[in-house]
C-alpha cells in the first residue's frame, strides 16, 4: 500500500510541477502583454498557481490512497479546466496579444488540457478513485 501511495504521489507531484511551471510562464507572458490583457490574465495565472500549490499541499498531507486519489483528481480537474481559458481567450483581438505570445498561451492551454486528462486517467488507475469524486 505504501509503495502505491508513493508512486501515485510522485506521479502527481511531477505533473503538478509541470502545470506550475506552465502557469508561471502564463503569468510572465501576461505581464509582458498589453495593459488590457495584463490584469485579467495575471489574475487568471495567479488563480491557477494558487490551485496548483494548494493541490500539492493537500496531496502531500493525505494519509491514505483513496484520500490522495480524491485530492489529486480534484486538483487535476481544476487546472485542466482552467487550461480551456488559455486555449480560448488569448486569440481575442481585444486583448491585443503579440502573435508569438498568443501562440505560446494557446499551446500552454492545450498542454494543460492534454497533460491534465492524461494525469486524471493515470491517477484513476493508480488509486482506483472515480473521476467524478
Amino acid at each position, binding site marked *: 500500500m505504501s509503495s502505491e501511495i508513493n508512486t501515485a504521489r510522485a506521479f502527481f507531484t511531477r505533473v503538478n510541477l509541470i502545470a506550475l511551471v506552465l502557469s508561471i510562464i502564463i503569468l510572465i507572458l501576461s505581464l509582458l502583454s498589453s495593459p*488590457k490583457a495584463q490584469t*485579467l490574465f495575471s489574475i*487568471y495565472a495567479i*488563480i491557477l498557481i494558487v490551485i496548483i500549490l494548494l493541490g500539492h499541499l493537500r496531496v502531500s498531507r493525505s494519509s491514505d490512497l483513496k484520500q490522495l486519489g*480524491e485530492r489529486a483528481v*480534484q486538483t487535476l*480537474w*481544476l487546472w*485542466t*479546466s*482552467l*487550461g*480551456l*481559458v488559455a*486555449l*480560448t*481567450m488569448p*486569440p*481575442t*483581438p*481585444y*486583448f491585443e496579444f503579440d502573435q508569438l505570445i498568443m501562440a505560446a498561451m494557446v499551446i500552454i492551454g492545450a498542454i494543460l488540457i492534454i497533460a491534465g486528462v492524461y494525469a486524471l486517467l493515470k491517477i484513476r488507475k493508480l488509486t482506483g478513485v*472515480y*473521476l*467524478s*469524486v
Partner: protein
Amino acid sequence: MTEVKDYFGDYALTKIPEAETRTFLNQLMIFMGVLAVWAAVFAGAALASWYDAVTLVVSVVLGCIILGIIAYLTGYIGSRTRASTYVILRHSMGRVIAMIAGIIISGISAMIWFAYETWLFGVIMQGVFPDIPFMRVEIASIWGGILMMTTALIGYRALSVLSYFIVPAWFVIIPMALAAAIDINGGWGALMAAKPPTPMDIGVGITFTVGCYIVGATIAPDVTRFSRRPHDGPLAWFIHVVVFMPIIMAAGGFLQLLAPGVNLAAAMVSLGMVWAVLLTGVVGQWSTNDNNLYSSSLAWCNAIPLKRVYWVAIMGIIGTVIAALIAFGFGVSLEALLMLGSFLGTWIPPMTAIMIADFYVVRPLLLGVKPVDKRYEWGPGTTYSLVNWPAVVAIIVGGFLAWWVPQVYPAIPGVIIGFGVSFVIFLILMAVCVKMGIKYGIGKWVETEKGF
C-alpha cells in the same frame, strides 16, 4: 431506509450507498454547472431595466441569500436521508400526491426547461456561426438535444465529470468577458453613472431572483443525496448561489445598463471571443440541461415504474422535438410553453414549504420524532398514506394565492406568498389533526421490493 437493489438506475428510488457518496467540491461543481448557463446571464440583464448597478447587485444578493437558506434546508433533508426530492415528498404529502408533485416540480417543468435551453443552444450556435448549415437553429437544436441527453443517460457520474471539466473555466471566462465588455462600453465610471429606464422597488428584484431559481432550490436533494457529509451538499448549494449567482446575473445586468439591447454573448462575439462563446454556450448549456433531464427522469421514476434511462430517453426526445418545432416555427409557441412552465412554477414554492415544514417542524415537534435520521424511513414494506390532506389543502390554497395575488397586487411577490401561506396552513392543519386525533393520511400504499 434499508438498502435495496437499485432497480431503476442511479438510485432513483433507493438510498445512495456510502461508497457512492461524493465530496464537497463535487457537489459545488454540479451546482455551479447548473448555474453556468446563458439564461442566467440573460436573467440578470432583465434586472437592468429596473436598477442601477449597486441596487442590482444588492437585490440579487438578497434574493440569493433567501434561495440559499431555502436550499440549505431542502438540501440537508436530501443529504441526511440520501433520497431524491420526490421520494422525500412521500411522507409529507402521501404517495400519490408525491407522484403528482414530482411530475409538476421536475417531470414536466424540468423537461420544458430542457426544451427551452435546447432551443436557446440552437440560437447561440446560429448566432456564432450564421453561415454553417449544421449550426442553423433548427439543426443545432436537434443535435444539441441529443448531445445533452448523453450525460443524463449515464447518470450522476457523467454530470460530475462534465461539470468538473467546464465549470472552473466558465467562471473565469465570463468575468473576463464582462470586464472586457464593460471596458469597451465606457468603463466602470459609466457603469456606476448609468440609470435604469424604469426604476422599481428593490423587492421586485429580490422576488424575481428567487423566482428564477426556486425550482433549483427545491430539487437540491437530487444532488445533495450524494453528499458524503450532511452539510457538504447544502453548503455547496449556499455558496454557489450566494457567491457565484450574483456574479453571473451582474454580468448580464451590468452590460445591459451600459449598452441597452446588447447581450453578453453578442458582446463577446463582437470582441472576437468566438471560441469562448462556443465553449461557454455549448458545454455550459449542456452542463445545465443534463441536470434538467436527470431530475425529470428521477421524478418520473417515482410516478411510473420504468427504468431511469428510459425516462431520460423519453423526456429527452420530447424536449428535443419541442425545441426543434419551435426552431422550425411549426406551431409550437415558445411563449405558451414558458407560460405553462411559469404556471407550474407557481405551485412549486408551496410544495417546498410542505417539505421543509414537515421535516423540521411536524416530525420533531408535533410527531415527536426528534432524531434527524429517524424522521423519514424507507424501504420495502414501508407504508405511506396515499394522500396527506393537510398538504393538499396547503398546496392548493398557497398555489392559488401565489398565482392570483400578484395579478391583483403586482407589488406582492407570488413566490413568497405561496411559500409562506402553504407553510402556515400546513402547520396549523397538522397541529389540529395531531392534537385532536384527526386522521390526516388517507389510504395506504406499501413500498415494493423495487422501492416503488
